[in-house]
């Protein structure tokens, strides 16, 4: 056995009393792992090099087992982290799973919500951070017991749409306050918005009144848009044209983008945006 060990180690063993040496050898005998650690611990660098060269083939294989495991572990950890990019990820809990739903709008990463599920028959929601105005109970009643994937992705739809509507309203308030002539009125679900605005803030014209209703809670564009012009020459063609084109624009593009185009073009609205 001594022949297999590194020269340095053999010397060390021989320097001990025969009994101690024997005890050590016995302890080392069955622990092949320990041989490697012994090489590394006790042998000097020069000897390590030599000992690795003398090592048995199966020892060489075992040397990288730990490394293989560590690499596998890092890979699995990374893939688990990557799930948040699907918008849906989760962590196992003692009761079941805590699902995390991420939301985004046009590439902007927004709020996250969680749903803590208890894996029992029947499946139930332990607690969650979904806002009260999202129809969670309705969606759960429809899908939770029969098709959990559908439940989760359906909830994703609602939450992403809500996040998107909220983002648009927030951007309107923060970036285009100059064009608004009054406060933006909005409900918590952000599916009913009401505001007044002017294309030329300092000008003499009357403001437009817009009312946006998003009947489809899984959509980020409104289903019903009404724009009215309360001015004295309300019946003039140019105001009517503008009013009508604004209505179309609000239906087709996100709110803050419509206002961005207002700000860019000033008074004249680019008719090409309407087509």
């Amino acid at each position, binding site marked *: 056995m001594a022949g297999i060990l590194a020269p340095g180690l053999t010397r*060390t063993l021989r320097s*001990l*009393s025969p*009994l*101690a*040496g024997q*005890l*050590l050898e016995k*302890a*080392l005998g069955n*622990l092949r*792992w*320990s041989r490697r*650690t*012994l090489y590394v*611990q006790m042998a000097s660098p020069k000897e390590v090099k030599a000992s690795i060269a003398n090592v048995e083939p199966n020892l060489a294989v075992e040397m990288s*087992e*730990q490394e293989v*495991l*560590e690499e*596998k*572990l890092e890979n*699995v*950890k*990374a*893939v*688990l*982290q*990557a*799930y948040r*990019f*699907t*918008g*849906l*990820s*989760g*962590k*196992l809990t003692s009761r079941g*799973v805590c*699902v995390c739903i*991420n*939301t*985004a709008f*046009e*590439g*902007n*990463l927004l709020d996250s919500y969680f749903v803590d599920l208890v894996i029992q028959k029947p499946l139930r929601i332990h607690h969650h951070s979904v806002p009260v105005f999202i129809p969670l109970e309705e969606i759960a009643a429809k899908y939770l017991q029969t098709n*959990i*994937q*559908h439940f*989760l*992705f359906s909830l*994703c*739809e609602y939450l*992403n749409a809500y996040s998107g509507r909220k983002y648009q309203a927030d951007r309107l308030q923060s970036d285009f306050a100059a064009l608004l002539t009054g406060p933006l009125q909005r409900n918590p679900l952000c599916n009913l918005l009401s505001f007044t605005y002017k294309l030329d803030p300092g000008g003499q014209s009357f403001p437009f009144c817009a009312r946006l209703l998003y009947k489809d809670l*899984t*959509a*980020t*564009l409104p289903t019903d848009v009404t724009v009215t012009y309360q001015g004295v020459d309300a019946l003039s063609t140019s105001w009517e044209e503008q009013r009508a084109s604004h209505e179309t624009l609000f239906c087709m593009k996100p709110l803050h983008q419509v206002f961005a185009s207002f700000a860019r073009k000033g008074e004249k609205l680019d008719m090409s945006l309407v087509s």
Partner: protein
Amino acid sequence: MSLATKSFQAIHQFNSEGWKSSKDLKSQLGHLESELSFLSTLTGINIRNYSKQTEDLTGTEMTEKSIRKVLQRHRLSGNCHMVTFQLEFQILEIQNKERLSSAVTDLNIIMEPTECSELSEFVSRAEERKDLFMFFRSLHFFVEWFEYRKRTFKHFKEKYPDAVHLSEGPSSPSIVIRSASQPGFELVIVWRIQIDEDGKVFPKLDLLTKVPQRGRVPGCSCFRCLLNMPSKAAYFLWVSQGKNQKLEISLMYFSIKF
């Protein structure tokens, strides 16, 4: 003796630590792998590979204003049932005193199979909008409909093997209903799965009939009545609710009569 004991203890400790860390690793790996498999089953999305690179874009000017800018490059690949995907995207994170904002600044998607034309249009739209989550959401619903269509057509094919034909194999978007005894009579049901501007997935059904002029086929008009599809919307409704009874009854009648 004391030196031996010390050495022995040192070795033993190191050994047991060595063994512990290997066992520990194995059990940790096992636990995480089962968590991964659970997540894959829960979402229906199977991620196989992921890597990321981070680049700090904070300039000296930004550091003075306590602004930090980081660009992350991500690459992930995997599959959702029969669809495999490979994504490369960039996320720009800007941290200032008030908040942290993250945005997807670039998105590239490669998907297979490439024959699904409905999917390729959808992919370009997702890339344009840089909407990572919409991509996965719509992918999930698309695959759900795809599998449902496959199962439904398979069911009819197995039940009425002589009358029903799948023109393009098991994943065919349409079925052809023919009768051996009445060669002129043909019914084609086309069931497309479409993805609209917002990433909403919905089925679109079309019914094409080829019926001999003379009407010599006795139960022909009766068959049409049975199918009784006044509008595509009605058709879509009962297929989407899983109610295939009408089609089932019609096909049964068809196979008996012809």
